């Protein structure tokens, strides 16, 4: 039995490239399906898509199995993509990390696709949405299975493109297209920084490491490559390369100062938002960070930089989320903040805990966004939590699963407990008081905004008429499925993570430490209690406090509500500074460079006028001109001769 399983898993691993191309085939099929008017069938689209993602899941599970069976075994197949001074290959690369990511990505894709059927059924662009989802699957699988840095970059940008498409899915909405464009450009900025880093890496790999040319910067040799690099270049140069690469990761994971685009993801259809915020574009960043971990860890200052960015984003994101009124915005800022913490984990050297944390966050966030999306649709597209209330009675499933998600996300119970605790442990081990305090603050704020959202939406008075339950079976099914995953996944994974996913040597996750656990729980439930007092119990003292806090002129509130004015600053920068510069160039183009030609043309005209006017028609003037020219020439020649004879030449 075991032998058979091994054989099968080996087969699956070897043909893992199928996963990559299956979605493309599905895209083609959906395209054909949708363009034949009388045959177009939504069921068929759904089945094809689900089939492909399920098959992907199966492949992923068997690969994971293979990886568990053969620890530290790599599977790598490459073909040449581009060859010049150096060769760039495309290929698949399966190790523990990619197998694990593949499992979760395909799983979430499956769930989201299932959910989307109910959610998008009535939309006219149903097929288009599924095409996008499948393209997304292609890109993300390509990214996860990438065998080298350049391939990663290629698919990373493609994921950015798909994100752009998904955000701008409802392109008739101005806000959607604007958000899409913004997301794309900010990601692009990160991407090009990453590109510079990669170009420099390629350069060093070509120059110093010509034996490795065949597969430039393959992940299997990256460790060796970066060590060589570290020994070759100065610390500052190394730091610069690291920062450039990390800038790419920052853009993808929505870190300060490139976090603003994440709010734009709410413009996408809810399932797409869920995907993007869980195992979509943000996963790309985290995964890339894990892949480049060998590079980062060599430089102490780089790690400090990562930690710093992470914790600042975590705090700012959570702080901003506290005052938001749009449910989806709360969740979006929460994503940015949670990923900050994941990066903090990387920064303090807790590789496996970070990945664990990220996986748990992914599934949880997917659940919450799906619930949120279904909920908002049920409420006739009302997204403002101030106008919701008492939804628990009518929509118990949503309330329950949202609660599960919230509890898990703030690390109190279920999966979140394991991940948060192990991460906290690592942070404490790191031994920086500010960092530990920051982490606790983050946990407090996260718990606060999650409970605030829960209380405002599902408890309290009924504030608006709640419509009927938006109950497609696929929606319910997927939410239930995801809730179950959220509940159990941490428990399942808690043991294997340190053994299975680790950097260089296994490090056991340490999530059971009574003092710390109690501290965390205390903070979480403290926040929960405050939220309860503020939004449920209507306690007088708290109300006064709240009103004081929500005063329009209160700076902390304004900062939080307006997300620290990052939008405004960047807009000012783009509008006032950059566009002015461009207009200045335009001015130069029009009047200086264009003017040269005008002046030339004018000169020609003037000359032409002079010549033509000098042709007076009077023959005497002609003779005069001739004689003037002639006598002038004669005089010059004569003078020259005389001068020549005087000089004695």
């Amino acid at each position, binding site marked *: 039995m075991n032998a058979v399983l091994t054989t099968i898993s080996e087969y699956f691993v070897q043909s893992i490239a199928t996963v990559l191309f299956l979605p493309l085939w599905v895209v083609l099929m959906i395209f054909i399906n949708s363009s034949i008017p009388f045959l177009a069938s939504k069921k068929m689209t759904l089945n094809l898509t689900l089939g492909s993602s399920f098959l992907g899941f199966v492949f992923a599970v068997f690969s994971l199995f293979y990886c568990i069976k053969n620890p530290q075994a790599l599977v790598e197949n490459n073909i040449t993509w*581009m060859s010049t001074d150096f060769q760039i290959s495309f290929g698949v690369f399966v190790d523990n990390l990619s197998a694990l990511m593949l499992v979760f990505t395909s799983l979430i894709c499956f769930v989201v696709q299932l959910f989307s059927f109910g959610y998008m059924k009535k939309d006219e662009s149903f097929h288009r949405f599924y095409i996008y989802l499948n393209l997304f699957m292609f890109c993300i699988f390509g990214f996860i299975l990438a065998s080298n840095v350049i391939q990663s970059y290629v698919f990373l940008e*493609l994921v950015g493109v798909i994100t752009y498409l998904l955000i701008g899915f409802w392109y008739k909405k101005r806000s959607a297209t604007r958000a899409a464009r913004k997301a*794309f450009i900010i990601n692009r900025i990160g991407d090009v920084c990453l590109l510079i880093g990669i170009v*420099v890496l390629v350069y060093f790999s070509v120059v110093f490491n010509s034996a490795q040319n065949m597969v430039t910067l393959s992940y299997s040799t990256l460790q060796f490559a970066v060590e060589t690099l570290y020994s070759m270049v100065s610390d500052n140069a190394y730091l610069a390369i690291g920062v450039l690469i990390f800038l790419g990761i920052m853009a993808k994971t929505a870190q300060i100062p490139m976090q603003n685009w994440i709010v734009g993801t709410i413009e996408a259809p809810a399932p797409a938002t869920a995907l993007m915020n869980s195992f979509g574009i943000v996963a790309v960043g985290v995964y890339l960070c894990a892949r480049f971990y060998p590079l980062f860890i060599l430089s102490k200052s780089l790690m400090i930089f990562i930690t710093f960015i992470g914790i600042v984003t975590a705090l700012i994101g959570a702080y901003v989320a506290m005052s938001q009124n749009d449910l989806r915005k709360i969740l979006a800022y929460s994503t940015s903040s949670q990923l900050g913490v994941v990066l903090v984990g990387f920064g303090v050297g807790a590789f496996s805990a970070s990945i664990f944390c990220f996986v748990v966050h992914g599934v949880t966030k997917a659940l919450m966004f799906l619930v949120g999306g279904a909920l908002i649709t049920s409420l006739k597209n009302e997204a403002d939590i101030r106008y919701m209330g008492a939804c628990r009675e009518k929509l118990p499933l949503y309330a329950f699963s949202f609660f599960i998600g919230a509890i898990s996300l703030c690390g109190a119970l279920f999966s979140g407990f394991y991940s948060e605790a192990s991460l906290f442990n690592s942070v404490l081990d790191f031994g920086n008081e500010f960092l530990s305090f920051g982490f606790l603050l983050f946990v407090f704020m996260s718990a606060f905004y999650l409970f605030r959202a829960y209380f405002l939406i599902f408890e309290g008075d009924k504030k608006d008429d709640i419509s009927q339950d938006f109950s497609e079976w696929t929606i319910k099914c997927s939410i239930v499925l995801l809730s179950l995953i959220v509940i159990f996944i941490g428990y399942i994974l808690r043991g294997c993570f340190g053994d299975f996913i680790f950097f260089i040597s296994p490090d056991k996750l340490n999530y059971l430490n009574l003092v710390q656990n109690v501290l965390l729980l205390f903070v979480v439930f403290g926040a929960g209690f405050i939220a309860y007092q503020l939004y449920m119990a209507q306690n007088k003292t708290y109300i006064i406090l709240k009103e004081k806090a929500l005063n329009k002129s209160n700076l902390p509130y304004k900062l939080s509500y307006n997300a620290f004015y990052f939008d405004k600053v960047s807009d000012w920068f783009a509008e006032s500074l950059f566009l002015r510069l461009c207009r200045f160039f335009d001015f130069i183009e029009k009047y200086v460079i264009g003017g040269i*030609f005008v002046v030339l043309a004018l000169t020609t005209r003037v000359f032409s006028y002079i010549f033509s006017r000098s042709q007076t028609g009077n023959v005497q003037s002609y003779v005069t001109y001739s004689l003037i020219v002639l006598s002038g020439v004669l005089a010059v020649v004569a003078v020259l001769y005389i001068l020549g004879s005087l000089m004695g030449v």
Partner: protein
Amino acid sequence: MNFLSIPVLIFSPLIVALLILSPFFPNNEIKIRRFSKAFAILHFIYSTLFLLFFNPTNFGWSYQKELTFFNVSWLKTLGITATFGMDGLSLVFVILTSFLVMLAIIASKSMIRTKHRIYYPLILILQSALLGVFCAKDVFLFFLFWELELIPMYFLISQWGDRDSSAAMKYVVYTFFGSMLMLLGMLVLYFYSFSISGVLTADIESLSMSENVFAMWFQAFIFLCLLFGFAVKLPIVPFHNWLAEAQVSSVTPVSILMAGVLLKMGGYGIIRFNIGLFPEVFSNFAPLLIILGVVNLLYGACLAIVQTDIKKIVAYFSLSSMGLVLVGLGSLSEAGFEGAVFQMVSHGLIASGLLMLVGIIYLRTKTREISALGGLSQVMPICMYLGLIICLGAIGVPLFSGFPAGFMVLVGLLLSDIEPQAFLVCMIVLCVLGAVLSAGYILRLFHKTFFGSVLSQFRADTVQIDEDGNEITVVYPKRGITKSEIVVLSLLAFAIIFFGVFPNSVLDIFEVTSDIILDFMKV
């Protein structure tokens, strides 16, 4: 392969053009159009046959043919021969030319409504000239074809565009000005190499100044003369002023040829002449070229961002893209060189696609003002999707043809021997800044035209004036785009994706040629 004859390839469009012009050809719009379309397709197939029988590992010229007139060389006494040759580099451009001319002629169906009798022959004459430039193996033959392109282009710009002949004149003056200086350089080069070698010859390869027989300032003089001619064509920044105006005032198929092929003549000339003949001067000038390229890149991008005419945006996009070519060539490394050539091919496709989009939009809305446009996705969705692919290509997203070029240029830049390294890194940073800006203005173009509220002035039927002054109403099909337009756009989109996914399909063709040229430079 005996049936692959370069003279046939080059001169057949000319002969067909004369055939259409001759009084014997039926003066029927449809017949003329179909005939030229059929010919263009056949010509494209014929040119791909060259690729089919092309041996990429072949060292030197793969196809070579001297054209004689009654067994006498063209200008025998002066050592100037009408010799055509094709190596990998030429082949790439020949196929690009043939492909884009074919697309331009297909696109002409909806874009051109008048004067078919003259329009199609002019396009075909232009094609001959372009092919001649890419295949000429003799300096003055090259110059002849270079000049030959001028007059058809003048009429194509001035007659079928916005009726603003000043732009066409500007084009002619700029180009002719450049080519006059180029001629000066060529003549000086020709006679001085004669005075050294004692052999009168104008063969490109035998004029090379690899050995240091002349003083450096003298070589630099000739180099600059030649570069000036190409700089006007490419265009390099202070000499680019004609581009935007000529683009804006010419009709779509002509702009396609202009951006797609004409600009490439400049790049090709720099490769063949400035690099091929003056390797040493070139390596001295390389940092300057890189700086010029970066200036091109950023200046073009900055201008594109503030334009309100969508065709101008595309024109400045071309300017910006050509900057990358210059950077790649200046990097003096194989990757940079190949990246530059790849960029030229890729830009040929992408710019054509963008111009086609602009043309389609202009035909239906009668405006190119960006503020007056919007919401076209709702009336022409197919156009939007194809446009999306082209725009992504323009932005330089991987797996589209723009990316491999940019990537190779960047790596090539770093791999070059130019000191100091910090300079190169600065240039790379500026180049990628250009990539960010390109995302900005291309997305602006895409969003402002296709997204937003539906346009009021969009009409699915358009009234046009035909040759006799009658009004004809052209009704566009339901999806807002005609079949010929779909064909053009989807062929371009396909090519963009294909070359993005398989960059080696292009790189392999001219790899050996680039090796030769670069080896030459290193010696």
